[in-house]
């Protein structure tokens, strides 16, 4: 059996662990830069507030105290995610994290009953030891486990733990109700193409002819169909393959037209992208930069330039990428526009090990793998941006806006959660420590 452990409203739940005031209230977490809503509590969902709504539309509700909004606190969420993963590792034979709030557990040689018991035990334990509510979906394959988890979340009957057997009556009924677009790995475009071939539900895909699927669509889709029948054929390696492109982009805290500030932002993004690149042991063949003005401000001139700079030879050297970024900016920058967003994308990645030097390509630049490794190591231990190339201005407009971020309770000594020795003690201490005015 394969289990999928998925935290409910993970970001909101993390906030609630350290702030009892938020319990039972409608809470939303905003994206980088407080742009839009990326996580909602059950109470907020019940109010009909949709995912992705721009934060400024909720400002009046927030001011009236009807909802609570938090800036995203990725340090906190990352730490809680690592704890969740470790807790599962302590209890299960094998675990592989799939995203920040979803982890697969592998329970070979467990009977169905043992799996259910373990699922319930894990759910109680995670709730008590970390304060996080989770749901557990169990099934013979990854694809079915994902569906089982969805059922555990949405149907109160299961009390958070759902086991689906292959080819059982429950599974059949569920597959018939599930639109094919909700099946794991099937996007909107593919779902549209499937609909043309009269495949509307997960059950239709389950029944489809495998040869036809392979011929008309892809091997992966045929495997998904097999997975729905209960034959495991997707492996974590298929899911976690190195990404083929890397992108880092941010909105500016305030729109800016200054070339220096735009360049600063791009430099920071380039360094972050290069670090991601080295982490997955790839080389990039091309660097793309892009800039956006605010398209909602019709009164201002609009400009969405992008520049693609192919590299002479595949590289993972920050300095090469920075030079490409500089060239790109020279190509497209025009004064007189107020830019809202800047980004750096690394494209056309190749595996560092498999890459062979071609006879015609210029000799590689005198690479300094040690320098890059040291750089990454220091930045990982001391915090992002401890060492960087060139000076980045800390007060520049493009720095993140996070007006409502909670404290980083688990990663900063000066931001720990406070516990009062009696009711009202925290407030009294805060008043006492305030300087007299």
């Amino acid at each position, binding site marked *: 059996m394969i289990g999928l452990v998925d935290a409910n409203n993970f970001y909101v739940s993390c906030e609630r662990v350290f702030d009892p005031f938020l319990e039972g209230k409608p809470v939303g977490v905003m994206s980088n830069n407080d742009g839009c809503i990326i996580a909602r509590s059950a109470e907020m969902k019940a109010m009909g507030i949709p995912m992705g709504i721009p934060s400024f539309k909720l400002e009046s509700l927030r001011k009236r105290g009807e909802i609570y909004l938090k800036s995203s606190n990725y340090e906190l969420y990352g730490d809680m995610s690592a*704890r969740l993963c470790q807790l599962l590792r302590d209890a299960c034979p094998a675990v592989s994290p799939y995203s920040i709030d979803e982890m697969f557990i592998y329970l070979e040689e467990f009977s169905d009953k043992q799996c259910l018991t373990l699922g319930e035990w894990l759910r109680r334990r995670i709730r008590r*030891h970390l304060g996080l509510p989770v749901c557990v979906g169990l099934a013979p394959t990854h694809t079915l486990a994902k569906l089982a988890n969805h059922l555990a979340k949405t149907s109160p009957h299961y009390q958070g733990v759902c086991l689906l057997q292959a080819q059982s009556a429950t599974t059949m009924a569920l597959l018939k109700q599930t639109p094919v677009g909700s099946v794991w790995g099937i996007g909107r475009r593919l779902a549209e193409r499937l609909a043309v071939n009269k495949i509307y539900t997960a059950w239709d895909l389950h029944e489809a002819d495998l040869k036809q699927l392979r011929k008309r669509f892809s091997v992966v889709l045929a495997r998904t169909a097999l997975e729905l029948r209960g034959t495991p054929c997707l492996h974590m390696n298929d899911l976690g393959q190195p990404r083929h492109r890397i992108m880092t982009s941010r909105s500016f805290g305030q729109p800016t037209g200054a070339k220096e500030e735009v360049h600063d932002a791009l430099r920071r993004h380039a360094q972050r992208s290069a670090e991601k690149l080295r982490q997955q042991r790839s080389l990039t063949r091309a660097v793309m930069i892009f800039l956006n003005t605010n398209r909602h401000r019709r009164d201002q001139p609009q400009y969405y330039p992008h520049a693609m700079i192919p590299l002479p030879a595949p590289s993972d050297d920050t300095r090469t990428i920075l030079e490409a970024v500089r060239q790109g900016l020279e190509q497209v920058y025009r004064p007189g526009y107020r830019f809202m967003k800047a980004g750096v994308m690394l494209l056309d990645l190749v595996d560092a090990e498999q890459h062979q030097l071609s006879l015609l390509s210029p000799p590689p630049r005198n690479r300094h793998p040690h320098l890059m490794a*040291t750089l990454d190591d220091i930045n990982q231990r001391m915090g992002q941006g401890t060492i960087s190339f060139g000076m980045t201005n800390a007060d520049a407009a493009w720095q993140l806006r996070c007006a409502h971020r909670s404290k980083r309770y688990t990663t900063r000594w000066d931001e720990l959660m*406070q*516990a009062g*020795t009696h009711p*009202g003690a925290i407030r*009294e201490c805060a008043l006492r420590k305030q300087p007299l005015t």
Partner: protein
Amino acid sequence: MSFPPSPVAPALPLTFQPLPYSSLQGRAGFSGFPSPAQDYEPRTLDLNTRLIKNPTQTFYLTAAGDSMEGWGIFDGDLLIVDRSIKPRLGHILVAMLEEEVLIKRYALYRGTPHLCSAHPHYPPLPLKNTDCQLWGVVRAVIHEYLR
């Protein structure tokens, strides 16, 4: 008295200097006569292993207020809270009560479980019929005399 200028050290690039690896690593592939001190190498006292039994479930908190001084918890002390421990009478707990985070001692008062403080101003809070939620058990308190 002034010191003579030190002889100029040759400028080594950063990467030539050894990286700060922990002493446990870096011995792989080492051959030859083993050091007689090798068996004793990693044995140094680590406060983490003494105070933190369950790292995954351990959180740090700061105490605020004076009403637990009788049990040795002062304002600003660091609390090491283990969420995996089952609370027993006599333990010092972190609990959530009416939207507040409190540190109290879990003890019997007139025969029923209460959350008690060490200060006469604050009477024990009965646990019956409240929505009090356990957050964790305080395993240790660190009081720093020099800060």
